[in-house]
């Protein structure tokens, strides 16, 4: 094996190891006191509540588009009545969680990467440590916990907004009423469709927060490093969400066979 490839592989493995240790530390400290309750609540507001408009608007738009596509497909089989239920299932089981995860990896991932990166290069993280504050617990653990709590809530919001978007499209196309649309939508959606898929987004939240915190917290090379941390936070979080989604869906089908239709 050429030395360049070997060194690259060793460097990549070392990087994976560093991220894994960072994530393990974040996970461990999230479960042990002292808990930074006030800062965690502030992060839930900053990262979670302030992402709500993005999620709501995107959800409505996705619902409209999904509804149009579903109509185009189901019309061929004369199954237009199934549109609300089909849309609801698609949203709740996969589209809502995955889209919310990817959108939030952009908004939250970039934000955390840039904020912690800037704090690192301007010595604010050192200033926290110098003030006898555990900077890791104060900056990283609070964000990880906030993301784990916020992602399922925002995913639920996205699902709901998507349903509203679907209703708007159906109402425009057929004049279907609001009660009828939602009655048909929920006839096929069960707890096993909603709960595992939504809980899955807690893992997405953990991935986004730890990956972007790691890149921001370990930033070097001044403002250029901050930009790189921000960009890489989005890219790596998105890739990890997509890959982990495959594993998590398989895991959900294994734990809840009925969710796979079995």
């Amino acid at each position: 094996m050429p030395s360049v490839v070997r060194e690259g592989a060793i460097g990549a493995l070392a990087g994976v190891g560093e991220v894994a240790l960072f994530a393990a530390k974040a996970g461990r400290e999230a479960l042990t006191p002292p808990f930074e309750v006030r800062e965690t609540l502030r992060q839930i507001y900053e990262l979670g509540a302030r992402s709500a408009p993005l999620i709501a608007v995107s959800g409505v738009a996705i619902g409209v588009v999904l509804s149009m596509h579903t109509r185009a497909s189901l019309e061929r089989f004369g199954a237009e009545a199934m549109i609300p239920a089909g849309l609801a299932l698609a949203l709740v089981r996969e589209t809502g969680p995955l889209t919310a995860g990817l959108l939030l990896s952009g908004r939250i991932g970039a934000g955390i990467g840039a904020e912690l990166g800037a704090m690192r290069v301007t010595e604010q993280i050192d200033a926290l440590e110098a003030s006898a504050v555990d900077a890791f617990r104060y900056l990283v653990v609070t964000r990880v916990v906030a993301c784990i709590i916020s992602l399922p809530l925002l995913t639920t919001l996205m699902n709901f907004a998507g349903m509203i978007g679907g209703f708007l499209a159906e109402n425009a196309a057929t004049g279907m009423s609001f009660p009828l649309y939602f009655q048909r939508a929920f006839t096929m959606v069960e707890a096993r469709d909603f709960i595992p898929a939504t809980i899955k987004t807690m893992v997405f939240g953990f991935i986004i927060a730890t990956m972007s915190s790691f890149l921001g917290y370990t930033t070097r090379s001044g403002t250029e490093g901050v930009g790189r941390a921000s960009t890489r936070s989005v890219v790596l979080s998105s890739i990890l969400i997509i890959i982990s989604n495959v594993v998590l869906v398989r895991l959900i089908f294994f734990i809840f066979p009925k969710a796979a239709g079995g």
Partner: protein
Amino acid sequence: MTMAADLPRTGTEAARIDTGTAAVRLDHVSKAFGERKVLDDVSFEVPEGRAFIILGRSGTGKSVTLRHIIGLVRPDSGSVFVNGKEISSAHGVELATARKQIGFLFQNSALFDSISVGENVAFPLRRHTRLPDREIRERAQEKLRSVGLEREFDRMPADLSGGMKKRAGLARALALDPSILLIDEPSAGLDPITSGEIDDLLAGLKGTGGTTLIVVTHNIPSARHIGDELLMLHQGRIVARGTPEEFERNDNEMVRAFMHSKNAG
């Protein structure tokens, strides 16, 4: 005047220093970043209540020395003691307890840019005291007043000038009334008048008694104005130590270059 060769070189000799009266002691500290050796067997002690100035060219390990004292950097070998307790091996609560006795003014102030100037100063009080909010605000206001920034409580750090940021950083460093104050390049990036104002504030702290000042600078007028004792680092080693008057008479090439440079005043 103590020259590098006269400073304690062995563990036995270093141990003779009475840590009971030394606010800070470095004992044979060495530190390298990669291949680059930044501190090479550095030993010195700073008695309580003294204003101690660390001089030297850029990149000679001055700031790294300060970072060792507050435990932001750990030595590869050697030990660092603060008020008689070893900080270089401390963790968790022990490290936090030691840090509460130390105030640190960073070179670029390092104010938390997401909160107001007043909240920056109040931050250590909120974290480490159980005082009611009103009293915390009063104390933060008092610290800001002591550095001439009483009107800037609600302003954001980004809205302050370089000198004001420095003073706000000093107010934050003083928030918990630390027994030791570490100052990294107080005049960096400031005009001579503002720099003089910061020096006056630091010299004033000396007058209040009790506070041990350790100031890193390459500004000779500042060093003369503030310092009771000077120490010069060169290539990670101590090359000279003494009072400002002793430094004036020193014939070490590096000391002479510093003391008689164009900007030495």
